[in-house]
């Protein structure tokens, strides 16, 4: 009575086939990541040391460490975060909590999505025109970070909006029905329940800018500058540009050096990701619905 029919058999074979296909795709996806990481660790690992992280490059950047570039990248990402987070979060709050659903809002949303697709070299040129020349920030951390900020704004807005929209509408209705204003609803219910998603999304997005080269190349990052920046008006070295320079522009660099720089760069980004994921789990564990 309960034995398998031919149809059952066939379905099971088809099921196995699809499952296998999806598995293969997943493996294909992971392979490059694993290869990149192992090559980097294998080739770059030997040059890593405390000295490598905390000394300047010497002998025309063919030896020594990466300290100024490391510090510069931290500066660039931090200032970019400070600029893009408040603006992006505020814009997302407006779009998701206040804006009426009309053609203008839809047009703005469309523009934001398209903005996310603008190539980074275009942002770089915009940054030169706007921040370096028009606002007279010169080539500086400020100009470079603002360029990075502009570039990440669309993704910050999208990530924030997604977190906001993950808060069930029923909570908002409950608040409005008790006479709470939009802002009271946002402050007391919406933000507390979306802040973890917002922050992690934002950190993830902005940490990716640590690897960007084009937008900072003309706006604030220097090829070689063995001093630490003192303020946002200084130029600075940066990991990404440094990697580009020693890989392609400087003769006689030992092979291990660029791999070492790349390894540090990727570790920085992964560390930021890990922090933001840990942070998210910590905040998640406190909320329940």
């Amino acid at each position, binding site marked *: 009575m309960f034995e398998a029919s031919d149809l059952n058999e066939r379905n099971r074979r088809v099921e196995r086939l699809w499952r296998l296909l999806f598995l293969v795709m997943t493996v294909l996806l992971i392979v490059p990541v694993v290869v990149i990481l192992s090559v980097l660790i294998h080739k770059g690992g030997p040059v890593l040391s405390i000295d490598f992280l905390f000394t300047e490059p010497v002998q025309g950047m063919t030896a020594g460490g990466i300290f100024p570039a490391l510090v510069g990248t931290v500066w660039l990402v931090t200032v970019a975060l400070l600029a893009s987070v408040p603006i992006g979060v505020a814009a997302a709050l407006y779009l998701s909590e206040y804006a009426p659903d009309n053609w203008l809002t839809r047009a703005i949303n469309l523009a934001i999505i398209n903005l996310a697709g603008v190539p980074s070299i275009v942002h770089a040129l915009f940054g030169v025109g706007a921040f370096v020349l028009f606002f007279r920030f010169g080539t500086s951390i400020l100009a470079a970070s603002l360029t990075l900020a502009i570039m990440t704004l669309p993704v910050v807005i999208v990530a924030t909006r997604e977190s906001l929209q993950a808060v069930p509408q029923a909570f908002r209705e409950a608040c409005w*029905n008790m*006479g709470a204003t939009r802002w009271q609803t946002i402050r007391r219910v919406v933000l507390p329940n979306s802040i973890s998603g917002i922050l992690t999304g934002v950190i993830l997005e902005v940490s990716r800018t640590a690897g960007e080269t084009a937008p900072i190349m003309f706006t604030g990052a220097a090829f070689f500058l063995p001093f630490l920046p003192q303020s946002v008006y200084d130029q600075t070295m940066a990991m990404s540009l440094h990697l580009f320079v020693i890989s392609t522009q400087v003769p006689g660099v030992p092979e291990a050096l660029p791999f070492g720089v790349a390894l540090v760069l990727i570790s920085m980004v992964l560390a930021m990701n890990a922090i933001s994921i840990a942070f998210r789990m910590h905040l998640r564990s406190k909320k*329940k619905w």
Partner: protein
Amino acid sequence: MASAEAVSDIAIETRQVNLWYGTFQALFDVDLQIPRGRITSMIGPSGCGKTTFLRSVNRINERLGYVRTTGSIEVLGYDIYAPDVELVQVRKRIGMVFQRPNPLPLSIRDNVVFGYRVHSGRRKIPQTELDELVESALRQVLLWDTVKDRLDRQATELSLEEQQKLCIARLLPVKPAVLLMDEPCSALDPKGTEAVEELIWQLRGDYTILIVTHNMAQARRASEECIFMLLGKVVEHAPTDEIFVTPRNQETADYIEGRYG
């Protein structure tokens, strides 16, 4: 407005209310006088406009941009659609309970005083005042004894029945005049339904309660007046014992006897 009107026995009075969702008309010439301090139930087949009517009594409908309402709705003698009316005050005086309990993701205590805090502005509310409010509201909804030892737990951990009681309790500290309830028991099991009904019955007198239900037995047990709606129109409005025993209208009789929807 004349203050004499404000003490009349009518809590909600509507005149010729018509409502459109875009081009679709959902309410037709609704004329109702809902008595103060009593429980009035609204029955009718699905889609007849019960929820729509309820939601226009606290003006939550108009958040949808495409809704148009004509006619007048007066609550306690005041036209709530008048241009100088402050929506926040409308919502404060007219509380709403939903079909699915929707406690906020806060502690039980914070849920109860949420509305009160919202309406207190920047004033720092003394802890003793809050404690009293919480206790009295929870006592009124017959929930105090079950939750008094876990006021700081998340409200979402409560059972559905307790959540629904909490959703009623959180309306009380701001002293509403009218409570609108849209099928408040339909997500609850029979025991929960009974408990919430009992609670609603106890609140009668202090509040004017307008309750939508699909449950004939509930309308019969737990309301004093009953409104039957059909296709956006009010068909019959009478004391509950009359409407269920001697309906004046054939459609009402058919519906009550379960002959449609």
